[in-house]
């Protein structure tokens, strides 16, 4: 990492311990304006701790954080919008006044905050609830309200943690559109989610963190190309589970999708299937791995077996 890149956020060699427990060992990535960057990892991998260090909520034990070309400063906080996984708004206060208060803390005047709030409430279909107490709103409505507080001050860097949780399909589409719009407007967006299909649909680059370390980092397309041949799609009758060298077998749209471990080729799987009794194969093809497959494969394999992080 160096200060000459135009990265909106860059972290390098981040490490953080809680007592004896090392939550983050070695995490590095950069995020640029105009991209949606996926921050992925299984539960407890250290994603939220990394985000908190990036946002100066936690101080890292080692490593560096740069935001907008330098260390975090009070003035830069107004250029950041954060939607944490642990959603929280003041439950006993009215929606509009809560959002205006949070917006003024991000540097907007009250008049400006009211003006922008009207637009967002209208867009997210919350206008008629503006004078209700937050606790009177449904979970989905609170989720949308929290998204308003993330976006109302028009931040240059957005950090959204599980932005689609608790939303119905209509609102999921709405939030997805908004995130896309922000990207087109040149904002740098860090999105952390477990919904891999959303990552595939939205993110151009990702970092995968496992057990506190970066294990996969780069462009989604390149990563997929690198992992091609590590999955097969087949149709037929019989038992397709418990095959050697297969990490996961799942049924999708009438076909079976098998994620292969490193060192297992599609031919190995085909040989094993042919030898199995009661198996009829109607279609067998090498599949482009989904991010799901890649995620499962990388996470399932012990990091000790790997030589280091894969950069694509």
């Amino acid at each position, binding site marked *: 990492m160096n200060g000459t890149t135009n990265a909106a956020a860059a972290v390098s060699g981040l490490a953080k*311990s809680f*007592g004896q427990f090392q939550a983050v060992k070695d995490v590095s990535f950069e995020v640029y304006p105009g991209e949606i960057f996926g921050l992925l990892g299984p539960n407890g991998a250290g994603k939220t701790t990394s985000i908190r260090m990036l946002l100066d909520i936690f101080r890292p034990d080692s490593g560096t954080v740069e935001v907008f070309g330098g260390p975090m400063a009070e003035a830069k*906080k107004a250029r950041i919008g954060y939607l944490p*996984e642990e959603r929280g708004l*003041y439950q006993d206060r009215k929606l509009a006044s809560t959002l205006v208060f*949070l917006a003024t803390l991000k540097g907007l005047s009250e008049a400006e905050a009211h003006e922008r709030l009207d637009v967002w409430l209208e867009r997210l279909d919350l206008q008629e609830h503006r004078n209700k107490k937050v606790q009177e709103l449904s979970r989905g409505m609170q989720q949308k309200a929290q998204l308003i507080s993330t976006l109302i001050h028009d931040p240059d860097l957005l950090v959204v943690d599980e932005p689609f949780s608790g939303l119905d399909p209509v609102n999921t589409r709405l939030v997805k559109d908004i995130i896309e719009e922000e990207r087109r407007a040149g904002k740098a967006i860090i999105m952390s989610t477990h919904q891999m299909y959303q990552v595939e649909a939205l993110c151009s680059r990702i970092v995968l963190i496992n057990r506190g370390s970066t294990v996969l980092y780069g462009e989604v397309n390149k990563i997929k190309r690198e992992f091609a041949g590590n999955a097969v799609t087949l149709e037929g009758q019989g038992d397709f589970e418990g095959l050697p060298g297969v990490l996961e077998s799942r049924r999708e749209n009438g076909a079976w999708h098998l994620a292969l471990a490193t060192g297992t080729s599609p031919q190995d799987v085909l040989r094993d299937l042919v030898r199995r009794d009661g198996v009829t194969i109607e279609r067998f093809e090498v599949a482009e791995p989904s991010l799901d497959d890649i995620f499962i494969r990388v996470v399932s394999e012990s990091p000790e077996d790997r030589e280091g992080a894969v950069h694509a």
Partner: protein
Amino acid sequence: MRKLWLIAKEEYLRRVKQKSFLVTVLGFPALMIVIGGISVLVALGGRDARPLGYVDLSGVLDERVVPALRAESGRFTEMRVYDDEDAASAALRADEIQAYYVVPEDYLSAKEARLVYMESEPSQRTRQDFQEFVRASLVRQQPAEVRPLLSEGFNVAVRSADGRRELSARGIVGFILPFVMIFLLFFAISTAGGYLLQAVTEEKENRTMEVIVTSVSPEQLIAGKSLGLIGVSLTQILTWVSVIVVGVIVLLYANEGLDAVSLPWDVLGLAIAFFVPTFGLIAGIMITIGGIVTEAQQGQQISGLINMLFILPIFFMVLVLSRPDSPFMVGLTLFPTTAFLTILLRWSVSTVPLWQLAVSWGLLVISAAASIWLGARVFRLGMLRYGQRLRIGAVVEGLRTGRTPQLRADAADKEVV
């Protein structure tokens, strides 16, 4: 600075708009108004406007003193003289007078007069007026040079050996007022402490901390909330003091006999000097508790015990009044949590040596600074521990190493890693 002000304003407005605040602040004045109103009604409504008759067989009473008494008090009962008891009795039956006194010939030796009335006894105020009439008549018979002394009495001034304090025997209001002020000030401080505890735990309960600290630093958040709550305290105090001032004026009007009130400026000065560090000490302790616990309810139980440490001097009121300079009282004076109340209580009845004031204030300021320092650090350690209590061992570890302590295994899943 703008953010600090925004948080202070938000906290202030939110608190003063709460029903519980309105009940606390307005409840006291309402009580004062009711008491004052009853007092005025008793003083005014209970009086009989009819004159008071008297038959003077002793020759002691002198009608010439009445105009002077009237001039002193506009509501002095009208006195009507009768030559004999038959005439007075006839007037009483004719409802011309409310009652009459018969002052016997041997009044000066017997010191007793007889009061005659029909249904209800004259009010105490009316009887006092008659006694005043008798006293003024007796004084008039004395040489001119001793009359003022007899009519106005002595004013004994007690001065401390070093001449710093002077206590006058006059002015019951001047004696009570400091006590009232002390308790109000203290009540306001401890209420603000309770609010601060709520304000801290509320951020954790609502899971708002993570969003807030990406806009302001935890220190700014705490400082802003404290500032707002000092404002709430001052609003409370100013409302109450205004009501007390109005109440005293009303009471003075209703009871003209009360001595003139002089404000205890020295007590107020001391109270102000000790107000800020005491608030700081309570604030620091409450923030520390708020940083440790997960819900306001848990915090309130602990803060109840802490409050006891601050109100301890009240339990020793008798000792304060009888032996204000005892070693135990000196101990309470120097101990930071009890300094505020003890010093002001002692000051109201006695003097406090300068060295004790200085040492006590110094210790209070140091402990307030230490408690705020501790509060800010514990708050940082515990601010994102949603639903998880911070262990004392973890606090010590965090303070010692400056690192975030490990989560308890049984609750580790409550914090997102």
